[in-house]
């Protein structure tokens, strides 16, 4: 899949030497977010920035508030305090579908595919927001509906090609093995051509080879389309290898924020992961 077809970028100064999109300005900024459910404080006063075209990892022990953070970003949870700025504009209270339409896609920790539909239909559904043909055109598969279906099918086939799931495109996803389901879910998120992709533990429960494949897909997505990626991951090796920046959460608070090397050297992080007095 060539990058020019999907994400035309003029001028070579937009790219780094290894062909990646250069990390740009802040695209999404969360400021002083606090979220609680009844008496449980899930997030306390969290702020960080997400820059355009970067790969940002959010790490932390179980229950640190990582998934809640993603849910705040895509409008699924509404924080009691704090603000979210998307492309410099403060975001109002919103429904999740509005986030999707504004270019924020995500995958889930527990796979959330449409089990009764084929892999292809799942990915096509990811492009639903881009389809505009009317009721009658669809009912009789006329002109616009037919053209639209075929054109979007072509795009989805590129994603299928990219994720190497050609062989299972017509299989109902309920029948697919776990690793392939994860890929289909990534494909569904990619289908909407998002600017920001939120991945919640994309490599959970995978073996080494599957993890390597998934890392390759994530890096390729970032490189070819310049998609900004925010991911949650527990495997430190993966996090340190693929991310540009790391945000560390613990008990709903931010411990550290910086490049993998800075985070690795941070005393608070060492204490949280290995226990105090180490």
């Amino acid at each position: 899949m060539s990058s020019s077809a999907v994400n035309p970028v003029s001028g070579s100064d937009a790219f780094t030497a290894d062909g990646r999109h250069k990390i740009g300005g802040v695209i999404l900024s969360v400021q002083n977010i606090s979220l609680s459910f009844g008496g449980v404080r899930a997030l306390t006063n969290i702020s960080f920035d997400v820059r355009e075209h970067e790969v940002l990892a959010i790490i932390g022990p179980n229950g640190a508030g990582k998934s809640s953070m993603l849910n705040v970003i895509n409008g699924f949870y509404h924080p009691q305090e704090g603000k979210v700025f998307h492309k410099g504009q403060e975001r109002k209270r919103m429904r999740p579908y509005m986030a999707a339409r504004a270019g924020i896609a995500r995958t889930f920790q527990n796979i959330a595919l449409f089990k009764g539909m084929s892999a292809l239909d799942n990915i096509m559904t990811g492009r639903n927001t881009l389809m505009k043909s009317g009721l009658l055109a669809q009912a009789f598969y006329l002109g616009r509906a037919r053209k639209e279906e075929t054109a979007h099918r072509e795009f989805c086939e590129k994603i299928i090609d990219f994720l190497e799931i050609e062989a299972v495109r017509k299989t109902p996803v309920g029948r697919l093995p776990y690793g392939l389901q994860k890929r289909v879910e990534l494909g569904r998120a990619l289908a909407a051509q998002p600017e920001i992709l939120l991945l919640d533990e994309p490599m959970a429960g995978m073996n080494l080879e599957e993890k390597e494949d998934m890392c390759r897909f994530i890096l390729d997505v970032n490189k070819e389309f310049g998609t900004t990626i925010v991911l949650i991951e527990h495997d430190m090796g993966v996090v340190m290898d693929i991310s540009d920046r790391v945000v560390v959460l613990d008990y709903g608070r931010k411990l550290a924020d910086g490049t993998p090397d800075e985070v690795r050297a941070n005393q608070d992080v060492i204490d949280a992961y290995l226990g105090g007095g180490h």
Partner: protein
Amino acid sequence: MLYREAGQFKTSYAADQQIFPILQDRIGIGLIAVLALGVLPLFATEYMTTTILIPFLVMSIAAIGLNILTGYAGQLSLGTGGFMATGAFAAYKLSTMFPDLNIVFVFLGSGVITAFVGVMFGIPSLRIKGFYLAVATLAAQFFLLWLFNKVPWFTNYSSSGVISAPPRAIFGDIMVTGSSAHYTAKYLFLLVFVGLLALAAKNLTRCHLGRAWMAIRDMDIAAEIIGIKPLQTKLSAFAISSFYCGIAGAAWGFIYTGSVEPLAFSIEISFKVLFMVIIGGLGSILGSFFGAAFMVLLPVILTNAPHLLGLNIPVDMISHLEYMIFGALIIFFLIVEPHGLARLWQIGKEKLRLWPFPY
């Protein structure tokens, strides 16, 4: 051996996206069309047409309608009878208020009116799901029947509360409704309607609207997160479903029975259509036809079977046996194949692809 897609290569996405991508399926559907349009009208007797073919077609429209709502969009509904009654009374009001209106537009108009009614009763679906929604749609069933019973305007102030289909013709002089209409004309008119409606339903379910319905059905939270608006999608399913149910009701009143009272569309009809959808196969247009055939044909077969077998069983005994066998068969089918007859058909086709070399 015969049913194979081997050697049928698709070279474009358009070719791969046909409704019947396999040649044998296209031949099959062509044969069915010829049989239904050309052969059956020549040989079917009046009894066969009016007790089997016409009710089968009417109920398949209703089953497609409910299948769109329950099978594709995952919203359980027990209001089918109420929506069918709405269609029948809307058709009656339309055809008596505008006597010059073509019967085709009367049917379509009654569908549109029912769609609006369906949307109104679909609004609770944003908040409640599953069995609770089914109970909420019961309100539609009971309220609508009560309304048509109590407000004489709907029956044009008829003292009996029964509406009779006025005689209407298509193409100038071919009567399709009313007592003077020939049964073959009624059958063919209905058949064309059913064919077009089924085609439209199939197309809707394979385009983006259908995918949005299925996404809401399979996982509504994930659907919303990829940008599908839940309220609009659910209401569109209610609208399209009620459109079909409305036309089914109009066809019931105008073509099948000729005259109808609100009680004909009781809760029993709602359950019957729901059984058709479950037995035929949730989420399958073809399954709607299988389910309708099962529910319409089986009682006829069970009633006539003792005579054909030479058994002398009293009539009341037959009707009791009919209920028992019918219930047992429904349970049997649901245990053997919970996904319905459409799934059995699909398994059969997959077996046929490998036959006679199962490995």
